C-alpha cells in the first residue's frame, strides 16, 4: 500500500533520511536506545510498520547483534524530486565481551523491540580479614 497523502503533512517538517539509511538497498536505520544496568543491557529498537514474524535477530562470535526487519508496507521518502522507496530496517550493534549470549531474550510490542542482554558474572569474592 502506498503512503496516503494528507494535508497534515504540510504543517510538519519534511521527512528527512537518517545518514545511515541506504537508498540503494532500500534499508532504513531504526532509532535505538541502549541502557546499561548492573546485571544486563537493555536495547530498544523502534520498528514501526513491522510484524513480529518479519524480524530476525542474530549474534556473531564478536558479540555483534544484527537486527533485520521487513516492512509490511513500502515506505516512500521524497528527496530532491525523487521518490525513494524503502522496504527494510537494519541495525548492527556491538556489545562488550562479558555478555551471556545464551540468555538474551527479546520482546516485541507496539512496534518496539526490547532485547535484554544479561552480563556474565565474572570475578571472585574477596574475603575481608
Amino acid at each position, binding site marked *: 500500500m502506498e*503512503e*496516503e497523502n*494528507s*494535508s*497534515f*503533512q*504540510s*504543517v*510538519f*517538517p*519534511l*521527512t*528527512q*533520511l*537518517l545518514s545511515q539509511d541506504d537508498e540503494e538497498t532500500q534499508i*532504513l*536505520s*531504526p*532509532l535505538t*536506545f541502549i541502557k546499561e544496568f548492573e546485571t544486563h543491557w537493555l536495547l*530498544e529498537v*523502534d520498528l*514501526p*510498520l513491522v510484524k513480529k514474524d518479519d524480524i530476525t535477530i542474530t549474534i556473531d562470535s564478536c558479540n555483534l547483534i544484527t537486527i533485520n526487519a521487513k516492512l509490511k508496507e513500502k*515506505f516512500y*521518502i521524497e528527496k530532491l524530486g525523487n521518490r525513494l522507496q524503502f522496504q527494510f530496517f537494519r541495525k548492527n550493534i556491538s556489545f562488550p565481551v562479558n555478555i551471556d549470549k545464551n540468555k538474551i531474550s527479546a520482546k516485541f510490542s*507496539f*512496534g*518496539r523491540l526490547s532485547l535484554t542482554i544479561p552480563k556474565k558474572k565474572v570475578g571472585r569474592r574477596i574475603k575481608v580479614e
Partner: protein
Amino acid sequence: MKTKLTKNDSSVLLIGFPSNGLVGTFTVSYIIHYLNMEMIGEIEHSDLPPALFVENGEILPPIRIYKKDNLFVIISDQPFDPYLANDFAQSVLHYCKENNIRKIFMISGMETINRDPKTKIYGLVTHQTLENILYENQISKFLGGSIFGTDAAIINAFRKSNIPALIIYAECHPFFPDPEASVKAISTLAQILKIKIDTQDIEKRIERLRIQHRNLMEETVKALQQQQERKQPRAPQIYR
C-alpha cells in the same frame, strides 16, 4: 529573538516544540491542520541554525505562529539548546503581552519507560486560576519530579508573569517519536477548549509518523541531553 507579529485581541495560545516523544510537535501540528489555521507570523533568532522547509512551494520558517478565531498556536520544528530556550520563552511571553493573550496551554511529553499503552495525562499550572481546568477535565495533577530545558524556561517565564500557563504532559517514550501519546493529548486539549477534533487522520498515520520523524527525534534527544547536563543539580559549595 524578534517576533514578527500581527496585533490581535485573542486570548488562548497553544505551544508545542520538540521534546520527549515529539508529543508537543505532533499535537499542535495536528490541531493546526485540523482547524485549518492560518500562519500569521514567525519567531526569529540569529543563533538558530539557518533552516527553512519548503512544502508545495511554500516556505516555512522553523518557528511559526498560527491563528484562527481566538486561538493562537506557536510551533517549533527545531529543538532548542539551553541558551536558546530562555530567549524562546521570553519571546513567547512578549508575544502574549503584545497580543492580549490571557492564558497559554503548553503540550509536552513525560518520559516513561515501559509505559502502559493507555497514555496518562498530567497537568501543571503556574497560577491557581487554572486549577479548575484540571478538576473539570479530570486531569491528574503533576505532583512531583524535575523539569528542565525549554519546558522549564517557559514555565519560569510565565509563573513570574500575570499570564497563567497550563502544561499538559502526556506519558510517552522519551527517545522514540510517540504520536500515540499525542492522540491522547489532542483529545484532552479538545475537551479543555470545548471543540471537536477527530483524531482518525493522525491515528491511521501513527506508524509512518514514527519513521518520518526519526531525524527530528535524534536532534531532539541531543538537545534534551545538553539541557539536562546543564541543569544537573549542584552540590552546595561546602561539600565541593
